[in-house]
Each structure stands twice: as structure tokens, then as C-alpha cells.
């Protein structure tokens, strides 16, 4: 080893010396992100969660196909009445099924586990003993959580497309049985495709506020369970307040307020007002909560 004799010696001013000071700098954040993604990918829980998320819409599809008994328009989960006519509408309907409860639960579990899970496992201190700043670790964790959310949404949309087109109505594309919007007008297959893509994007963004919240809680506690349940409790609380008329004053600022506005993407013409408001609200939560998460995590004593 060449380091035995170092004639330059350390400098009291903290000057970097040669390779020692230089090494570990400018490490690509990408490498850190890839490590976090790989950790998420090799964890069985990740895939079990996504599998369960896909299972619910599939079960619903089977029931619909067997009984041919959809909720009447205006009742039951959004859109389910339409999918009997056209299975290609099912991805959007399936996302509507998991959006209010199951998707936030999954996101809370993964995001709540991000830092607190490492702390509980004792590995957090070893992650921080690498030549990596805490900020970068937090960013890598956030990217991993968002990747999980997007993967889950895409997986649900994908399975729903398969089950929808196989089990439910599969109208010939150009014919009169083509999909209709909520407003009752017809949809071309291209229209349907890009609107579904918009829904996938909007739902992923809607989950960002939840993810940021659970991540913040995850930096505050060493218990992944507390972080996940805390995030979930606040989401449930928000949903309760959204439905409460006397909470009208704060309603538009609640994180779940515009979640269901994805339906507006299936109106003709698309009703952008609430979608835009929803995006702005989520962005606000993400900025504030992530800022708080960063502030706590970079100044916290790691005693786990």
C-alpha cells in the first residue's frame, strides 16, 4: 500500500491532499440511485405489493365478466359501468379502484421504510459511513420511491389492459361500440391511449405528496411502521376533511382534494382546471415536505 509514507502530511486548513481528498468526490448520484433501485428490486416485498395491487382489479374484472353486472352509471367506482362496453377503458377504471386506498398504502409502506427501515435494520449508519453526503442518500431514496410508485401504476394499468381486453368488452376499434367519455362522446383508440397515459402520469404525481410525507416521517423516526402508518393516518384525515362541508375553507389545500380529478381527463373536452390545481397542490406538498425531510435528515444525530 502506497499510503504508508505521505510526505505532504495533513494540513490543518483541511486542504485535500492528492488522491485521498479527491477520491469520493463527484461520485455520480446515478450510482447511488442505481444501488437504491437494486435494493428495492431484490426485495420480495416490492413485487408482492405490486402483485397485490394488480390482483384487485383483476378480481373485479373476473366478477364483471362472469356476472356481466356492472354498477349503474353514476354509482359505484368511477367508470366501471363503461368497461363492459369496452375493455380498453379498464386500465383507467382499475387505477380508479386502487387510487383512494391501496396505492397510498403501498406508497406509504415503501416511503416510510426508506430511512426508518434502514435505521431499524442498523444499516443506516453504514450507508452514512460511505463517502456519500446525506443529501444524496435522501435524493436516491426519493427517486427509488417514485420509481416504485410509477412501476406500480404502470403494472396495474398493464394488467388491467390485458384483463380488460381479454375478459371484458373488446369493441372493434372503428365501430360504434368504441369507448365513450364520461361526457358521452365517442373516443378514438388514439384518444383513449393518450388519455390513459395522462391518467397514469396524473396518478403518479398525486402519489408524490404521500411519498414526500411518508419520507419526512421516515427521517423523524426509527420505526418504519410508525412512518408508514403516520403517513396513512394523515391521508385518511385529509379524505375525511375533504368530505366535510364545514372544512370548506381548507379543502382546496388538502393533499387528497384533487385525487379523483383524473376523471376530468376523460371528459370531452378535458376539464383542466382541477387537474392543474391538483398538480400545483402536489407540487407544494412535495417542496415543503421534502425541504423539511432534508432539513431534519441532514442535521439529525444518527443513534440507531
Amino acid at each position: 500500500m502506497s499510503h504508508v509514507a505521505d510526505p505532504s502530511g495533513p494540513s490543518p486548513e483541511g486542504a485535500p491532499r492528492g488522491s485521498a481528498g479527491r477520491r469520493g468526490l463527484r461520485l455520480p448520484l446515478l450510482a447511488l440511485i442505481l444501488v437504491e433501485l437494486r435494493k428495492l428490486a431484490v426485495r420480495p416485498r416490492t413485487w408482492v405489493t405490486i402483485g397485490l395491487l394488480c390482483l384487485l382489479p383483476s378480481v373485479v374484472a373476473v366478477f364483471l365478466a362472469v356476472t356481466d353486472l356492472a354498477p349503474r352509471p353514476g354509482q359505484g367506482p368511477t367508470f366501471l359501468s363503461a368497461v363492459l362496453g369496452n375493455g380498453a377503458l379498464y386500465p383507467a377504471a382499475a387505477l380508479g379502484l386502487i387510487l383512494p386506498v391501496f396505492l397510498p398504502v403501498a406508497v406509504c409502506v415503501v416511503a416510510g421504510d426508506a430511512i426508518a427501515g434502514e435505521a431499524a435494520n442498523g444499516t443506516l449508519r453504514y450507508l452514512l459511513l460511505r463517502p456519500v453526503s446525506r443529501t444524496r442518500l435522501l435524493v436516491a431514496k426519493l427517486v427509488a420511491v417514485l420509481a416504485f410508485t410509477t412501476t406500480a401504476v404502470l403494472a396495474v394499468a398493464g394488467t388491467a389492459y390485458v384483463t380488460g381486453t381479454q375478459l371484458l368488452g373488446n369493441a372493434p376499434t372503428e365501430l360504434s361500440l368504441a369507448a365513450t367519455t364520461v361526457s358521452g362522446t365517442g373516443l378514438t383508440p388514439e384518444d383513449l391511449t393518450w388519455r390513459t397515459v395522462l391518467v397514469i402520469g396524473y396518478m403518479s404525481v398525486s402519489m408524490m405528496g404521500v411519498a414526500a410525507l411518508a419520507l419526512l416521517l421516515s427521517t423523524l423516526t426509527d420505526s418504519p411502521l410508525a412512518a408508514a402508518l403516520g403517513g396513512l393516518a394523515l391521508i385518511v384525515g385529509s379524505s375525511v376533511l375533504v368530505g366535510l362541508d364545514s372544512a370548506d375553507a381548507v379543502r382546496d389545500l388538502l393533499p387528497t382534494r384533487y385525487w379523483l380529478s383524473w376523471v376530468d381527463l376523460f371528459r370531452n373536452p378535458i376539464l383542466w382546471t382541477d387537474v392543474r390545481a391538483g398538480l400545483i397542490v402536489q407540487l407544494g406538498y412535495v417542496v415543503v415536505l421534502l425541504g423539511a425531510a432534508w432539513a431534519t435528515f441532514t442535521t439529525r444525530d444518527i443513534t440507531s
Partner: protein
Amino acid sequence: MSADPVDPDDPVDLDDPLDLEEDERLDASRADERPGPPPGSAVALRGLTKRFGSSRGGVTAVDGLDLDVAEGERFGFLGPNGSGKTTTVRMMLGLVLPTSGRAWLLGERVPGRLPQVLADVGAVVESVAAYPHLSARTNLTLLDASAPGPAGQRGRRSRRARVDAALEAVGLDGVGRRRVGAFSLGMRQRLGLAATLVRRPRLLVLDEPTNGLDPQGIRAVTDLLLELNADGTTLFLSSHLLAEVEELCTRVGVMDRGSLAVVGDVADLRAPTGRLLLRVDAPGAAAGLLGTTSAAARLGGRLDVRVEGDRLVLTPQSASGSPRVELSAVVAALVGEGIAVLEAVPERSTLEDVVLARTRAVGER
């Protein structure tokens, strides 16, 4: 990238009058009487203090600690539970932020320049932790993959080679593909050591590295650490296991209630107690012989003799001006009377004696 002549982290020229931050820092260090780390410093702590909790109900875990460990040393950091050892190690490594005071690792200020300095530091803090559902190799690979390897060893193949070499160095090469969840305590301990070796550290900070190992394992790990130290790696061992420290360290510091009660070379701390220990074939006869006044005259001093089994413990009676009783004279006297001396040594205080004498356990006040 390596040809890049400008390092953005270079300190700004000290003569630059516009660099206020640098000037302020120099002023601050002048105000603080204590000098920074000497050249060749591995660990330097100046007035390091940590208070946990509020200022009223808080606990001072570490109180104004000063410590210097030079590069290439083998330093043992001792102290009872709750003496502030772990908090100090965590502050050194940037896990816990000091309330006041300053710290340097390998001459670099921490926690400010941690990302730069940690590439050269390997550490096990308290217990070893790993992802139980992953193999030993995957654990080490993931831990290493988040930062570029040493210059010229950045590729995936080089990383695999370094991981394999680290596993082999601690004797885990046969089980590298096994899930860590199925590892025994000793195997985990070895894995933790392997994790610190993937990057060939200049400073190793370890917590009881031989805890949980079988005798062969203790031997192997001790040899490995001594070998690394011979190559220039500084060892900083925080431990309760005094035998481990006596075997591995040349200098120790003993923590007691947040500050260092003792710092010194192991050889100095283990000073002779003045008592002599003998093992003889006829303890009774030997005791009778040595206790007499005539023997005292011949040996140059009175001896208090105690028989413990087949051993004799001789305590010279301190009469002012009397010369010291020589062990060789005692042995000669016994042999002259036909008593076989199987073993004869001057007693030395053990590290345990030093630690027990200078520290108090939690709760004792």
C-alpha cells in the same frame, strides 16, 4: 477526469482578502487556544462535547474531550457502558453532530469534509448490520457500489475482485453467496470487518472486532489487523474486551463519564506492582523459609508471604531506605534450600486493574 487541473474543493487561497469565510475560520481557531491536528494525525479531537436533550434535562455524554491518535498507531478506546465511548466514535464519523468542539479525521475537518475523508476510513460502529435477505457478496457490493472505487479500480470487475479479496481476507470466501440472515454472530463479525476492507482504509475504527469469534477466529482476526497495521493502517479499537485491547493496542485511552480518565502506552500502564509471584514445588516450606528474619537479612528486606495454592505472593515490606528485594535473590535462596522454582515473575497490573481503578460504572457516583 483525473487530468482536471482544477479541483473545485481546493481551499481558496488564504491570501485572498475577499474570502471572508476562510478568514473567519482562522480567527475562530486563533480564538480557540488549542491548536489543530499535528502532521500525520489520524484522529484529532479538541474540546469535543455532546449534550443530548434539552439544556435543562439533558445529559452530557461527552465533555470537552481532547485526543490525538497518530497515523500508524494501534489505539484502544476503553471505558464502561455509558462513559461516552460510542458517542465519541459516532461524532468522529459524523453520525452524531457535536454540540461544541472540533474534530479531524486523517487531517480533514469533520463533519464538514466527511464525504472526502470517509473513502479512506473503514468503520464498524457497535454491531455489524447487513441486509439479511441478501448474500454476503451482494451486501458488500451494494455498499461499495454507491461510491467510486479507489483510482484505477472503479470498474465492475475490479469491484468484484476487491469484494472477493475482502471476503477471503476474513475467511468468508466459502460462504460469500449465502444469505447473511443465516450467518452466525462470528460470521457477521467477519463480514463487518470485510466491509471495511473493500476500500483498503488508512484508518480502521472498530468496535470489539473479535467479539463472538471462536479462538481460531480471534487469532486470525488479530493477525489480520496487525498485518494491516504493519502496512500503515491506523487501528482505533473501541472495546470492553481488555484482553483484545492488550493484545492489539500499544496505546489506550480510558473514558469515564464523558472525558478521558487515562491516556497512555499499554506498557507504562501495566507497570510492575512491586509484588513477586512464584510457583514452587513445596509452597509451605518456601513460605516458612522466606518469612524468617534471617532470610530478610539475606535478601535485603522483609517479605510478606502469602500462599495461594501452589503459588506464593511476595509483598516487600516497605521500610524506608531499604533496598528492593530482587527476584533473582529470592529464587537463589529457594534453590539453595533445595526447593524447585517452577515460575517466578514480578507482578504487573493488568489493564483491567487500571480500568477498574480509574472508572466508575453507570449509576456509581
